[in-house]
């Protein structure tokens, strides 16, 4: 089969300081530029070698503007992954890698920047007085925010498989646990106990406050080059082993009419990922799985074959999900819940750190790291990275 496996590597990663939403001291585009320069510095690449950009979720920072601002000699690739939420986080990496493999460009940046003080928040309704199209079937009934849009998928899944409240709780606790070791994390120094989780307010049942991601300001960037070129650069390369994107049959059928309703949208995507990488879930040492809501992580892990739905209650415990020695260390930087909601791109950076042996919650000898992006939206995406030993 055709595969990206081993052809492209992430050579550098960069990020700004992560801020609470609305608290970034600089405009969004300046944050993007800072993250890109930090990734170049990390890789040991002159920024003028960048010749392409890829992003997702309608990032507001146009590659042509970035190229002009950075004084790039030429722009050869500019790419936007369709779809909202964080579903495009891994797809953007895949799109950049495909451009390099195809010869469209040689050094592509994947980036995401958010400054929500400057722009509208995700979790608050737009102030519109009317709703049209699909929104007309949901907004008048008070079904408006992302949490409200996805709660009924998770409710049905928990019902079908008799999954208790402890499963979602363990996912939240794991992120907060790992954030306590990570000085970059917005929730560093703000530990979470099971009791505090249980006493936290409902946002929308079945999601409590701590089941829902933060909203933050900041920017993150990755530098992708060919595997051959990456071997001559400053850092140990994180090789791309596989990427897949998409969603099931009629996932976007309006008014919550997707045939496979109780799903994180990965049921058809995940098998493509495993086939492309030539790996199975048992080969993965550490997972970064996008928490928009913990129930989405739960379904994502099941749809990527880490355990069966009937095993969720016993598998999803804090002990199993924590580095260094848990069965499946999860969200080892603190993720969207407790490090930063960098729209998931902080998860790609953490996966690279794990393969360099540089995480603040390191899994000893990690060779294969997975990233799962933006469950329950469409399209979603996921990816596998490996060290040279994994090739």
């Amino acid at each position, binding site marked *: 089969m055709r595969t990206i496996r081993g052809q492209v590597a992430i050579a550098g990663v960069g990020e700004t300081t992560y801020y609470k939403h609305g608290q970034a001291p600089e405009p969004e585009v300046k944050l993007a530029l800072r993250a890109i320069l930090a990734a170049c510095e990390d890789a040991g690449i002159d920024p003028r070698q960048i010749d392409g950009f890829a992003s997702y979720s309608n990032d507001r920072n146009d590659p042509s503007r970035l190229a002009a601002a950075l004084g790039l000699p030429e722009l050869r690739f500019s790419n936007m992954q369709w779809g909202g939420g964080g579903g495009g986080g891994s797809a953007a990496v895949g799109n950049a890698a495909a451009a390099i493999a195809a010869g469209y460009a040689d050094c592509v940046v994947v980036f995401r920047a958010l400054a929500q003080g400057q722009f509208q928040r995700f*979790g608050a309704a737009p102030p519109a007085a009317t709703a049209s199209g699909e929104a007309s079937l949901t907004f008048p*009934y008070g079904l408006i925010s992302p949490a409200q849009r996805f709660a009924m998928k998770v409710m049905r899944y928990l019902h079908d498989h008799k999954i208790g409240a402890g499963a979602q709780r363990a996912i939240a606790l794991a992120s907060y646990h790992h954030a306590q070791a990570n000085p970059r994390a917005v929730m560093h120094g703000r530990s979470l106990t099971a009791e505090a989780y249980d006493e936290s307010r409902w946002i929308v049942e079945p999601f409590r406050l701590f089941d829902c991601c933060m909203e933050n300001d900041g920017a993150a960037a990755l530098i992708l080059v060919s595997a051959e070129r990456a071997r001559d650069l400053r850092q140990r390369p994180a090789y791309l082993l596989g990427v897949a994107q998409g969603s099931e049959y009629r996932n976007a059928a309006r008014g919550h009419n997707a045939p496979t309703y109780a799903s994180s949208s990965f049921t058809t995507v995940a098998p493509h990922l495993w086939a492309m990488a030539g790996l199975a879930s048992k080969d993965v040492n550490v997972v970064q799985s996008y928490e928009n809501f913990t129930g989405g992580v739960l379904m994502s892990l099941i749809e990527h074959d880490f355990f069966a739905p009937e095993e969720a209650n016993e598998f999803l415990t804090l002990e199993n999900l924590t580095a260094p020695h848990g069965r499946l260390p999860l969200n080892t930087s603190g993720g969207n819940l407790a490090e930063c909601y960098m729209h998931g791109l902080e998860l790609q950076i953490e996966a690279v750190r794990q393969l360099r042996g540089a995480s603040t919650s390191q899994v000893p000898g990690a060779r294969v790291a997975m990233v799962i992006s933006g469950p329950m939206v469409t399209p979603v995406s996921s990816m596998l990275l490996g060290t040279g030993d994994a090739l």
Partner: protein
Amino acid sequence: MSATTYHLPAGMPRPVPEPDGLDAPYWDGTRRDELRVQRCRGCQGWQWGPEWICHRCLSFDLDWTTVAPHGRIYSWERAWHPVHPALRGQRPYVIVLVELPHAGGIRMIGNLLDAPEGDIPIGAPVAAVFEPHDDAAPPFTLVHWRKTA
């Protein structure tokens, strides 16, 4: 019907038909207390939400058929956090996803009226409750649900 009888507070986003006319027959039907959905004249398949083409046989010849306004609860959620300014001070409210087995299993969304405390029984039978907003400009009607057994 006066505004005080509405299930959610005044000031929620009002539904307006799409400019291209796709969903106008649905909203017109609700004004007559009728639940109208798409049915393909080619393959007789049901379709909801509305689209310009039948996803089964790819015919553009779609009819609008009135269906019996009842179903069963497929999923639910109870919203607590007020995400819209109109919802500040509102008590938690329940949203249900209702499956219509007699119409190909299509699903519809509304509020569950007289919802009990605690868990809502998935699979429970419900009937539609039409909520006209005659004082709106233009007027519209929402479709809620209530348990029947």
